[in-house]
């Protein structure tokens, strides 16, 4: 009988692994990450869904959070909470130092030259909108072309559609190969003298494709265009250097990389940011205000109007620290191994369609697929009952769905805490789903 003296499940007690777990499998996870230790750092992974262990495979939507980040949020509100940049008191000075310190952490993480090039936003979407409204409306003229890939997330498509309509500019889409990679031959022609902006994902949230950003950026720069990279999927999983990518803007979100929701980053080259008008107006973004006119603050505060998301920005620093301690190369290695394993296991299912590059070195840990005659929503539901969280639907990429001639796909996406064993559990649940729906994939 359970008594009060029995300890509650703590970070040190992992749930029992099911019988299917084999030692062979354990040695098959070769990357140098200590997954057991990592899993203990993520309290949510001990959660059970209807008595079943949670298998979280929806990391491309948002990642789970380590205790160090969660504790940091707590600590901020309990010890340092104050508004930044203004107060002449201890708390405000401490909060400001931590907030600005995180800017430096981010700078180091993406290898930017100066921390004033790091602008905190609400997320990738706001970061891209900032560029579209500020840089876009200042620079894009009738007849100009905005080049993008057909696998952009709606957040890196809709802002440019609106700008193009407003400015009578044209959207030009790059071609994809059958495997979902950028067709570089036609890219060299599609990026031309009218190209004003190339805006492209670093890694597709549907196909997993890692794009050749540097190569594309060189083509665009040769035409005098500016290059923006949507790093929402790339930055959390790939070692990223804005200098070696040779781009002008990078946008990404902290919540997909162990951080809290509500924090994004826009990095931009200093000379470009300096020439851009502010995006939002109000407090903090000014240096002096008179009745009729104001002088704007310098970078980066020129683009951070109002009280920023102080607590979440500071906690984002802890998320980056966590990834840095593991090492992004090791993170990538682990995800590549698990993706390679998932691709090989999924192929066992008869009639399954797997989208994107077949070579795990050319893709991130995002695997989209469709089972024969099972709608992804039905699949997601049946998997959820087995404790497995995947994503089902159009993944905010409706034009790509149209290209693939599907209404949606099922998508499993991996991160540092996922194991080979969880891929096995996904496989077992997929076979079960096939049985429930009376289909043929497993016959």
């Amino acid at each position, binding site marked *: 009988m359970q008594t009060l003296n029995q300890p509650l499940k703590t970070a040190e007690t992992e749930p029992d692994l099911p019988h299917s777990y084999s030692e062979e499998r354990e040695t098959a996870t070769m990357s140098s990450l200590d997954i057991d230790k990592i899993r203990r750092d993520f309290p949510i992974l001990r959660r059970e869904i209807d008595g079943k262990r949670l298998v979280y495979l929806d990391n491309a939507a948002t990642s789970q959070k380590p205790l160090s980040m969660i504790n940091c949020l707590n600590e901020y509100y309990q010890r340092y909470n104050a508004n930044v940049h203004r107060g002449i008191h201890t708390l405000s000075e401490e909060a400001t130092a931590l907030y600005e310190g995180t800017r430096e952490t981010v700078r180091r993480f993406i290898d930017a030259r100066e921390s004033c090039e790091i602008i905190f936003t609400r997320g990738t979407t706001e970061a891209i909108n900032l560029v579209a409204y500020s840089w876009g409306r200042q620079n894009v003229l009738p007849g100009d072309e905005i080049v993008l890939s057909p696998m952009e997330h709606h957040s890196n498509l809709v802002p440019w559609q609106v700008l193009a309509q407003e400015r009578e500019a044209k959207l030009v889409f790059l071609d994809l190969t059958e495997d979902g990679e950028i067709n570089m031959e036609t890219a060299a022609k599609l990026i031309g003298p009218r190209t004003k902006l190339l805006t492209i994902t670093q890694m597709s949230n549907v196909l997993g494709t890692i794009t050749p950003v540097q190569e594309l950026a060189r083509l665009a720069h040769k035409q005098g265009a500016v290059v923006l990279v949507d790093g929402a999927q790339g930055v959390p999983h790939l070692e990223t250097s804005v200098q070696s990518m040779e781009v002008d803007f990078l946008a990404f979100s902290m919540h997909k990389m162990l951080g809290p929701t509500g924090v994004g980053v826009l990095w931009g080259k200093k000379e470009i940011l300096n020439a851009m008008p502010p995006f939002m107006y109000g407090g903090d973004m000014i240096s002096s205000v008179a009745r009729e006119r104001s002088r704007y603050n310098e970078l980066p505060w020129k683009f951070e109007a109002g009280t920023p998301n102080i607590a979440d920005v500071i906690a984002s620093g802890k998320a980056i620290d966590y990834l840095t301690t593991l090492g992004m190369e090791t993170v990538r290695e682990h995800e590549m191994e698990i993706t390679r394993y998932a691709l090989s296991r999924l192929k066992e299912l008869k009639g399954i369609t797997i989208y994107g590059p077949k070579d795990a070195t050319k893709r991130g840990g995002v695997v989209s697929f469709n089972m024969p005659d099972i709608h992804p929503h*039905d699949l997601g539901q049946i998997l959820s009952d087995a404790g497995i969280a995947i994503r089902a639907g159009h993944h905010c990429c409706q034009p790509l769905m149209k290209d693939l001639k599907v209404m949606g796909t099922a998508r499993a996406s991996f991160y540092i805490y996922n194991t080979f064993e969880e891929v096995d559990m996904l496989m077992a649940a997929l076979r079960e789903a096939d049985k429930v729906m009376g289909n043929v994939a497993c016959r």
Partner: protein
Amino acid sequence: MSLVDDLYRETILDHYHNPRNHGCIENATTSVEGVNPLCGDELTLYLKVNEAGLIEDIKMNAHGCSINTASGSMMSEAILGQTVERAKEIIESFKNMMLTKGEELPLDEEMEDLEALRGVKKYPVRIKCALLPWNTLLEGLETAEAKPGLSSTLSDSK
């Protein structure tokens, strides 16, 4: 019985694999499109309503999940041959079943099959899937009523 078993009952899977009244009507009096913005599922619904306000034919072209497809298929069976007025009552009674919390309202006899969809209520996200054909039909009937030739006969059905 697990939750999933409850959701994917035989009746639902039968209608999913063999949807009734699937296709389009060439000389439809009304056609209307429905979209589930959540998942992008789409359906086109065709109606043939005669001068007397009787639904002579209904067909659907749908690309949806099992719940959406089965719900539409059962709906088409329930309202084929009914008056617009009666169809509206059936819609209301089905929507009540799906949206009312607490008290379980029994369905009319002619809607027996639709009982199978009651299990969807345990999955709030999926209620939208089940309702898409019904909301599309409602829109279709309202469009049909607004048409000049039919307005005189259909106006009483409000």
